[in-house]
């Protein structure tokens, strides 16, 4: 919310008449937020197509300076807001995380467009990160491919609203306040594929078990397929558990093949049959209910 001086003067605190126009009374949080929200400097930092619309937003027809996003700064040390404008690739996420670590607190991240929000049209790609939020905390997501300048402006105003709601008294709102700089986000590593150091234990466990599985299956590579199969088997089991046990139709047993691909096919077939059975079950129940009524 904007600071309205007239409103601020109308308080329950007694202000001498001669000072009424010179004194405003407000909370510290509000004053602090007012300062932050109206001097939000984005980083001059474009990734892909969305960057072009970001430039259009900065230029005279739309002009985000009107809302306090005054100037874009090329160095992260002077920036408050990182607009992730475009597809985040595995090769590029390393410098992005490094840049984020170099920004001083308080800092915000706005994911502009489908790619930065969740991978977008390029999500299937082998070099594409499915969304900036896999690595950095994102404050505002702006949908679109690319978002129009109006949409980006709306997203930026949404960020200002978010700041308005924060309170210094609440440590969760402003974790940096009074405690100094935060721990840096671990920078991902480019190995055989991208590696998030925070997940190293999990990755190692997974790689080991995948190796065991593959040895058992006589395979050489492609651990991801075995993961997929395992995940699918889990979901299938979870579905089976959640269902009532009183139907034989649900316990479909199919001959399982030797390779993970066949297994995946089998699971898919099983799920399809289960879905059909569930549908039939629902229909019979509905019929029984109707009869009962």
């Amino acid at each position, binding site marked *: 919310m904007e600071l309205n001086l007239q409103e601020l003067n109308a308080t329950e605190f007694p202000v001498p008449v001669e000072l009424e126009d010179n004194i405003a009374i407000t909370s510290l949080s509000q004053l602090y937020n007012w300062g932050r929200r109206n001097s939000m400097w984005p980083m001059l930092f474009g990734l*892909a197509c969305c960057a072009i619309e970001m430039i*259009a937003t900065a230029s005279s027809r739309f002009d985000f300076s009107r809302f306090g996003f005054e100037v874009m700064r090329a160095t992260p040390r002077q920036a408050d807001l990182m607009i992730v404008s475009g597809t985040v*690739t595995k090769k*590029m996420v390393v*410098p992005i995380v490094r840049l984020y670590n170099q920004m001083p607190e308080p800092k915000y991240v706005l994911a502009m467009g489908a790619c930065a929000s969740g991978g977008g049209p390029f999500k299937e790609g082998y070099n594409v990160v499915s969304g900036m939020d896999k690595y950095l905390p994102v404050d505002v997501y702006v949908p679109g491919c690319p978002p129009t300048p109006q949409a980006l402006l709306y997203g930026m105003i949404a960020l200002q609203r978010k700041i308005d709601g924060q309170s210094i008294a609440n440590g969760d709102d402003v974790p940096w306040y009074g405690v100094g700089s935060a721990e840096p986000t671990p920078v991902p590593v*480019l*190995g055989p594929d991208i590696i998030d150091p925070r997940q190293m234990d999990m990755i190692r466990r997974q790689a080991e078990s995948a190796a065991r599985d593959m040895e058992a299956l006589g395979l050489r590579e492609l651990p991801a397929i075995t993961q997929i199969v395992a995940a699918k088997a889990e979901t299938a089991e979870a579905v089976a558990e959640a269902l009532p046990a009183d139907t034989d139709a649900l316990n479909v047993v199919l001959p399982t093949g030797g390779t993970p691909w066949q297994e995946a096919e089998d699971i898919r077939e099983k799920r399809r049959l289960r879905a*059909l059975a569930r549908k039939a079950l629902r229909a019979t129940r509905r019929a029984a209910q109707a009869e009962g009524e």
Partner: protein
Amino acid sequence: MENLAAAPEQPIETASIDDAIAYLKSNHPGAIKLDDRAGYEGIIVDPDHLVDVARVIRGELGFDYLSSATAVDYLGEGDHMEMVYHAYRTGGGGALVFKAQTDRENPAIPSLTSVWRGADFQEREAWDLYGIRFPGHPNLKRILMWEGFHGHPMRKDWREAYYEEELKPFDSRWPGGHVHRSEEKNVFGKNVNYPTDIDLNRLMDSSESAVYESLGLGVDVERIMDKDGFETNELVVNMGPHHPSTHGVFRMVLTVDGETVTSLEPVMGYLHRNHEKIGERNTYLHNIPFTDRLDYISSMGNNHGYVLAVEQLMSLGRKYNPPTYRCEALRVMMVELSRIVNHLWAIGFWLNDIGAFFTPVLYFIQERERILDFFEAVAGSRMMCNYMRFGGLFGDLPERIKSVSNLTNDRVRDYNTMQFLTEMINERIPRTIDELELLLTQNEIVLERSVDVGVLSAEDAINYSAAGPLLRGSGVAYDIRRADPYSIYPELDFDIAVEEEGDMYARYRVRVTELRESVRILRQILPRLEATKGESIWADGKPGAYQPRVPHGEAYGRVENGKGELGYYVVSAGGRGGSSNPWRYHVRAPSFINLTPLGRMSQGYKVADIVGILGSIDIVLGETDR
């Protein structure tokens, strides 16, 4: 036969392509055979003789311009790898297509960098994505992915972590009618594919030289950094991938001696979003919106090249209707408007780079907004127009251009379309160009900064496969709209912009002239649109097949886009009687290949000139990295 022999013999440098092939066959008996697969053209050269044959093609036959070199993996269709080369004459005419085949297990094909320097990056890309080795290549390193990446991703048997099925539409997304999302199948919610021998400690090398690892010949980091003492003035400077003047996520590593650049190495791949891999899973139609996102400044031009390539393939089949005249006229209009947008953008940001920070750009973006308003009204989107279709277009012009934003203060946006176009083409755009010329063309600072800077000679420009304003700024009058015409360009009256000097200023002037020529073309298009009013944009009055089955064969569709020659190499194979998904979908990206001579162009100039030189090439990273 006697008559033919008696006719004055045409010099072999300008002979027809058939004669050229016959000449090659007589010169290299046994090394050459015709490519007789249905729908294919050109010759297949024995890899052992490839370099010799290429020298003859370039030197004696006059095909001096290597437009495209790319790999195809024919897994299951003969089980071999193939390199496909398209060579052209800068005098104009069609392509001499030659290919070299190798096995999939240990693929190796001799490098052609000694014949055409323009093969450099393209061969590195083939090594990176297909794993083909090129003996004789000076710097065979990965170019788009990082060193140490797992596998060669464009091979047909390589599967990405989000792999679902070979071809779209994916059945797995709605098994039994139940839609589910691909991330449900991924344990970590991240699209990664870790191999088993992972060792983080080995990978976490944060030393200085690790930053420059995987760089090539251009910069010898070890030599410079290992110098002890304070005697040296030579430094390694890293620019990018986050840098305000690299036009996106592009990186350059330069060595400088004082202020003078001694060598420069472009590093790319920071926006490599796997366009081609996704494109080969997609159906033909799916790819049109993806082409928008290549050179995202001029999406209409990208659409055009792709539909030309696929139409070329479709014309091999029986049921194919070529586009109507109105459709062609509309296509040309959109492409020329895109070219104007592209050149305004390029000039504006180049001026940014040489110090006119953001003032000119703001005026150019205003003009661009007008054109985007028009695109939005016609195609529904400002930037990603997705407008062209095989044999037609998404839609005809609307009656009126209205506001789509529902803003109450945007009521002004309600124009008659033809009136809007007429005013824009006859008044607004020429006025902007005049203003630009008045303030900049003779501007002292512009002249000081750009004359005789970043010089590229005509021979080098051809040899490095430079394209577009970069080639024409070096004095080579090669414009595909004239050299190998397509659409209705032959009947339009316009000149090729060309300048002799080969410096930054020459490229700037080429762009300004092209702006004027585009306006000239647009002025000829307007009466054609009036005359064909009411005519359908589809050949038989209704849209063609939504998902066409494309006959087997190969096609190379190329257009003169704002940044240079944009080519699409599309192979249709697999399936019976035609395919619904491209087997190979390759983009010959001008922004990518135009960077090959960057190192050479930058040598000897000051650090401050480097961003200007890069800006004068005019790259866009979506297309460079694809």
